[in-house]
């Protein structure tokens, strides 16, 4: 845990009753902030990260030394302009960038929790992060924003705290994880659990790492983040540093080599148990469950102004699922805008340099901000 010694975190004393029934308290919640909170504390934005993201959304991640995951969207003068807004990003509980997660030491056993860590949900993640509002003494957020699992947290946040966000931008997400989503996550989990180094989740105490299983999980997931057209355009059937097929199982094709690379760099920065726990949380996500299948009821008490964004080539969280959220909001006369952005970059579009998307976010935020000023 010492590698997280210098990063910002709060220790949440307030007990949090998890959906699984267990209660946690005095747990760490790692966060990062960008920009400055203004005097009347009205310019704060909480952004939520996706499955493998963390609190280091912009700049250089001090642990991995890699670029922040939302460098295209977040920073001075960018779509989420940190010259203007105060942005808070936290690592979700269950994660592996300093927040309470399965690689933390269990005080009772003095060993990492491993799979003794409680199963957490999107609801638990959001409730944990809500403590940051108290910490920064923010009465009302200007916006809550997130893509993919981050978008699910946006929806959950507005549902749980209907008067705490003026605006909300859920991006490329869903209100209820589909069978296909669950199936793809299960593929990743099975891959990790099939690695003999996984050791039922107690690999750390045996100084082992289920790197192969985690890498395959990442490779499979990575395909779902791209589109067929995007893959074809970038790789086609191009060969990897060779003139012809080698008639072996070596990486003949560039796409194979690319996926292997994606898998190998992922294991350096992500924990296998966190991958299990977070994908589980996504699979358990169904905002309609508590409301008898009626999504509108999840937002009934809220006056938050929504702006929903999907991408044409995203087949993981397709436009139709994003539109269901729009429909649910319109059905109760809530204020909602919706745009489907043209992009062949698949689900990953929200993380990339997709100009129409970035302009859309920027315009929505800036005009909404003008309206409250």
């Amino acid at each position: 845990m010492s590698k997280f010694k210098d990063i910002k975190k709060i220790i949440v004393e307030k007990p949090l009753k998890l959906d699984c029934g267990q209660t946690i308290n005095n747990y760490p919640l790692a966060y990062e902030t960008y920009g400055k909170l203004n005097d009347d504390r009205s310019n704060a934005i909480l952004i939520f990260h996706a499955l493998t993201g963390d609190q280091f959304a912009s700049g250089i991640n001090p642990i991995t030394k890699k670029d922040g995951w939302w460098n295209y969207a977040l920073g001075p003068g960018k779509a989420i302009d940190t010259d203007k807004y105060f942005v808070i990003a936290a690592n979700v509980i269950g994660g592996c960038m300093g927040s309470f997660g399965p690689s933390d030491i269990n005080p009772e056993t003095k060993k990492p929790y491993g799979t003794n860590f409680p199963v957490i949900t999107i609801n638990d993640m959001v409730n944990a992060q809500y403590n940051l509002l108290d910490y920064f003494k923010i009465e009302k957020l200007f916006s809550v924003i997130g893509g993919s699992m981050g978008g699910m947290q946006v929806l959950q946040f507005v549902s749980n705290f209907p008067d705490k966000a003026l605006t909300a931008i859920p991006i490329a997400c869903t209100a209820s994880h589909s069978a296909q989503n669950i199936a793809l996550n299960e593929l990743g989990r099975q891959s990790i659990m099939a690695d003999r180094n996984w050791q039922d989740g107690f690999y750390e105490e045996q100084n082992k790492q289920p790197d192969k299983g985690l890498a395959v999980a990442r490779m499979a997931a990575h395909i779902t983040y791209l589109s067929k057209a995007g893959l074809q355009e970038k790789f086609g059937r191009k060969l990897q540093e060779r003139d012809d097929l080698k008639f072996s199982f070596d990486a003949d094709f560039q796409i194979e080599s690319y996926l292997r690379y994606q898998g190998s760099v992922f294991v350096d920065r992500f924990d296998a148990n966190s991958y299990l726990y977070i994908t589980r949380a996504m699979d358990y996500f169904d905002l309609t469950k508590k409301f008898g299948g009626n999504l509108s009821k999840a937002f009934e008490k809220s006056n938050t102004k929504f702006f929903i964004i999907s991408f044409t080539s995203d087949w993981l969280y397709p436009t139709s699922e994003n539109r269901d959220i729009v429909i649910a909001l319109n059905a109760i006369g809530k204020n909602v805008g919706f745009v489907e952005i043209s992009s062949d970059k698949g689900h990953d579009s929200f993380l990339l340099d997709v100009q129409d998307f970035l302009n859309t976010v920027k315009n929505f935020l800036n005009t909404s901000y003008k309206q409250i000023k």
Partner: protein
Amino acid sequence: MKKEFYNIAKLVTQNSKILDVGCGNGELMKYITENISKDIRGIELSKSNVQKCVEKGLTVIEGNAEKDLKQFPDGTFDFVILSQTLQAFLDPENVLNELLRIGKKAIVSIPNFGHWKVRLHLLLKGTMPVTENLPNEWYNTPNLHMCTIKDFENYCKKRDIKINLKNLRFHNFFSELGIFVLEK
């Protein structure tokens, strides 16, 4: 801004809740937002027009009026505006019913196929009329269901739709456009 839009804007009341169906680049919505009511949103099919609305800071829902009006409950809006698109729908009758269901009032404008220029064009040239308001040729026009002001009035009568005629400034022969305020 087009004269038509000023005329439509005069028909909506202060701070009313408005939906602009087929809001285009948001010109009318912007004018209404700035001068009459902030509680306005639009539905638009074209991606480039949706982007133009977003640039103007307007609330817009990308979607197809023919399919997407059903998500709104009855009487959601004080006014629903439909400017010169009724004739382009596959099923204009259904769209009209939806407008009158979700809006307490519907403001509908139509290009008038009974205008004297249109009549003269067909009479003298014997070809499909091409005018300022109907700029396309027969083979590329989006207008599937052209009608005249008189046709529209007859239709409303038949369907028990009330037309607020006081706001109809133009007539069948001399008007290129018909603007109607409808109530069920």
